[in-house]
């Protein structure tokens, strides 16, 4: 039980560090590169909800009020849903 808790804590800790790194990368590297990384992470993790927050950041930082302001948010939500549907089908 103790080992299991330790494992879960370490997993959460690693994921938090990864999120901080991705957050900085989203602000620093070109948009197409950070988009590729986020797509990769959505495919790798079972339910990568952090992608929604990164997309939210993209939309609030760079979209002008006259454009559709939820482009990245919509894209990542749809992608997470599709990936979770495919993932469960593959693992049966």
């Amino acid at each position: 039980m103790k080992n299991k808790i330790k494992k879960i804590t370490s997993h959460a800790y690693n994921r938090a560090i990864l999120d901080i790194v991705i957050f900085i990368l989203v602000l620093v590297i070109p948009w197409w590169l950070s988009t590729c990384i986020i797509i990769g992470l959505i495919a790798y993790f079972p339910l990568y909800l952090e992608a929604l927050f990164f997309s939210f950041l993209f939309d609030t930082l760079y979209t002008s009020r006259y454009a559709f302001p939820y482009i990245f948010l919509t894209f990542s939500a749809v992608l997470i849903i599709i990936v979770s549907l495919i993932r469960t089908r593959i693992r049966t």
Partner: protein
Amino acid sequence: MKMNFLPKNSYTKSHSAHFNFRRKSLVRSSIYWVLGIFFLLALIIYFFPKTVRTSSYTVARPIWIIQEETVSTISKIRDFFTFKSWLTRENQALRDEVTALSLQANDYDTILKENDDLKILMGRQQALGSSTEDVNGHILRRVLSRIISKPPRSPYDTLVIDTGSSEGITVGSKVFISSTLVVGLVTDVTPHSSLVTLFSASGQKTVAENFRTAATFEISGQGGATMTITVPKETDILWGDKFVYSALTPATLGLVYYVDNTSQSSFKTIYIRTQTNVFAIKWVFVEKKL
């Protein structure tokens, strides 16, 4: 009759049904989570756009500034140790000087034409040192602003600058990269930063005037600092024609660098580009009302 396979089979079936049920409930809960967070974030953007943007810029600004400083320091160290880099730098400086001189020549043409027009008009007050006057008689002054984020970081043709409403910037203020080269408009303002949408942003429509013929056209942004116009083939637009932003003091939007006549239709596509690389600049001038 002994049928020892049946219990096993029924077990497998029930196990499979149970697994399917678990899988479906897992997928359903994932979808609920995603949709829940999606709608929550979308509602936040919808109801509090200004607060969200201000918070995002507050968080992002230090990281952008640190990155700019780090990149500039690293490039200085590299140049110090590498002779070849020094030569490249000098070459680049000379190229920049040539670009600046060509911009000055362009400014000169614009001012000369404007001067002629003013002589004809007479009596209209214009160009008061660094200030100008708009059509409603407001005195405008330009504020120097540093670009803190630009493409390719941003997926759209937008810039984030370090001046905002506290410096007198308002939505709709024109953004210049030289005295007469206009590149975009301020579309969002927070207290200490603003979002500039370039005329070349995809879907952006701007009314511009051909400087040579004085004909007015609607220019569409295509992204990547490029704008286009689709006009009938007979329209008098040539390579190198200058398009200016229609205002009392005309400001150059860009030059025609390609005319696509190859289409079978009766229209041609004109490609317009800003005279300098917009994505390589570090500073801009933003017009503010006094």
